[in-house]
């Protein structure tokens, strides 16, 4: 006996909308079982994990801080994936964006002018876009697989950052710790409200999400993305160029990842250090799919994923659960999203092998 996936003749519209919610509920149910097996009260644990961080203002600020890079990167990736280009290297573009954006405050710490921050943001976006341009060039020129090239460039970016902050960019007064000088006030992304630490990166994320949603929904460019993504041949008939689309998709997602990188360094960290991201570029892939590659859906899924980070801390502190639990939740969530999606398009069929051999003989 074996199991086969058989394509469904019709895809249920209701369930393709419900699928992420269903995945969320299944994650919660399995999470509850896991807490119960660990000997904790499942209800209390889920409350601490998913509700408590939402009840206080300061914690909502922290949620926005954590969600901003996920959403910024996620919406860019969504457009990229819709066009059938698979940029897996957002983490690297995030890193290069952060480095490119930090050039001014690191090299010119005495420059006090309001213009420095906008310049940093633009340079961050340019850095991320250029870095994503490498796999785009390789793909359009040599037909290489962008999944591999973009992923491998992540490690190069991280090692380059590591070298910079341990070598030429290290703060001479920093007790030899591998980090740069703290940025001057003018180079720090300001906080949005007085009530907490959340800074403007969250606004950038929302603006980017709405703009890309508008583009995908109402603009010719959005139509071009979807058509080329679904069928390159059909796109050619409509006069769209798949090659130009590779450039557009990679540069856009790279620029947004770069913006996320410089915003994180400028707004949350305040200097450059060897580790600037707990894997935002990779988590954003989960965020993009959980949001069904829809920019507005990604705002919601980015907040959910951010909550799993914060909840992990709250749960560790008040009920003593290991910090690995947040990783488990993120994994469960991705697993259920993917399997729900699969089961909307396919149904499981049990095939009894002996039946088939009989048929073959007959």
């Amino acid at each position, binding site marked *: 006996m074996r199991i086969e996936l058989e394509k469904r003749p019709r895809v249920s519209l209701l369930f393709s909308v419900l699928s992420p919610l269903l995945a969320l509920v299944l994650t919660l149910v399995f999470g509850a079982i896991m807490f119960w097996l660990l000997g904790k009260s499942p209800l209390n644990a889920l409350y601490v994990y998913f509700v408590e961080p939402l009840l206080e203002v300061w914690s909502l600020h922290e949620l926005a801080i954590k969600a901003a890079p996920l959403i910024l990167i996620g919406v860019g990736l969504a457009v990229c994936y819709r066009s059938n280009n698979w940029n897996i290297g957002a983490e690297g573009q995030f890193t290069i964006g952060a480095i490119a954006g930090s050039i001014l405050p690191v090299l010119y710490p005495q420059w006090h002018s309001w213009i420095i921050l906008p310049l940093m943001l633009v340079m961050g976006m340019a850095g991320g876009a250029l870095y994503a341009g490498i796999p785009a060039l390789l793909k359009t020129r040599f037909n290489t697989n962008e999944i591999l090239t973009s992923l491998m460039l992540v490690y190069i970016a991280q090692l380059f950052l590591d070298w910079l902050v341990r070598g030429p960019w290290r703060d001479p007064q920093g007790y030899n710790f591998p980090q740069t000088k703290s940025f001057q006030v003018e180079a720090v992304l300001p906080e949005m409200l007085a009530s907490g630490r959340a800074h403007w990166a969250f606004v950038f994320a929302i603006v980017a999400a709405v703009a890309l949603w508008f583009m995908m929904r109402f603009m010719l460019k959005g139509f071009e993305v979807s058509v080329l993504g679904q069928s390159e041949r059909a796109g050619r008939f409509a006069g769209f160029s798949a090659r130009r689309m590779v450039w557009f998709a990679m540069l856009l997602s790279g620029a947004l990842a770069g913006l996320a990188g410089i915003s994180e360094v400028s707004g949350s960290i305040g200097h450059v250090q060897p580790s600037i991201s707990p894997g935002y570029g990779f988590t954003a892939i989960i965020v993009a799919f959980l949001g069904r590659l829809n920019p507005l859906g990604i705002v919601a899924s980015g907040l959910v994923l951010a909550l799993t980070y914060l909840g992990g801390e709250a749960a560790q*502190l008040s009920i003593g659960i290991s910090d690995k639990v947040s990783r488990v939740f993120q994994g469960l969530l991705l697993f259920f999203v993917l399997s729900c999606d699969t089961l909307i398009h396919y149904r499981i069929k049990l095939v009894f092998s002996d039946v088939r051999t009989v048929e073959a003989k007959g």
Partner: protein
Amino acid sequence: MKKLIIALAASAALLGGFTSGAQAQEKKKVCFIYVGSRTDGGWTQAHDLGRQQLDKALGAKVETPFLENVPEGPDAERAIERMARSGCAMVFTTSFGFMDATVKVAAKFPDIKFEHATGFKAAPNLATYNSRFYEGRYIQGQIAAKMSKKGLAGYIASFPIPEVVMGINAFELGAKSVNPNFKLKVVWANTWFDPGKEADAAKALIDQGVDILTQHTDTTAPMQVAAERGILAFGQASDMIAAGPKTQLTAIVDTWGAYYIKRAQALLDGTWKSEQIWDGLKDGILTMAPYTNMPDDVKAMAEETEAKIKSGELHPFTGPINKQDGSAWLKAGEKAQDGVLLGMNFYIEGVDDKLPQ
């Protein structure tokens, strides 16, 4: 369905509210934040053992929640703030890299007591505490000089901060008190906690011919490499004898427990003050693991040195000491000031390495 959800949410809220309310009345929360895993076999584990001792000693009056694997940076500031807001009366932040985050959060919560390990920034509600690790390293250096056949030891260092440089110098001073020509090779792993990098550093040093290994990083990886290659090594932060039963000579064991109990008691009594504490072997904040895998005369020498340091008869940084370039640093009989030690950024004569600047 909707009613069910409301009912569930309400009961959950009740449950959450009830438990946290009950705890706040009975016990004071003394919280700990760790940079690594509390089972790392080194630095963080030593702090966690201290926390457990505190739990045992004052468990009726305090409880001791903790957060582990907190990265230094923005996540640390959020984690410390979460502790402050979750009702902790006192927070121990146990890594140098938590310094700026601790200072920021301490300024926001003046009623909560903070204690930062190995740092140098204090405030009315922020104390610092540290241990004179160099005392143990001096003893290790003496043992190394007796046990090494080649007169050459390897030192796996983390970051070139004063704390670590001081340790390297103390080791070399101890070694030179036995063998004036003793040489020390240093490899910078640029991490506190990374078993892979630490093991690589250990292999690189052994390939360069050292036959004694010591480390200022947190995991047992170097000890395991030393055991595989059949050379001797010193443990760090925790007793690492399990990782090298035939390898470990001794280890500097951080015994924070007594300090944690003392400070938590002060909190309960209302006598807590912000202090900058730098305790040593005599105060029990560090202890030497049993002297093993060495002949009796070496063991006797190590015990004698330990006793002399405890009694104050011997200060490892006593002149005459020259800097690496041969220029004089301390005159004969002159002892180094604490302030100079805490800002140390130069090597003494005999260290075979260039200090990264």
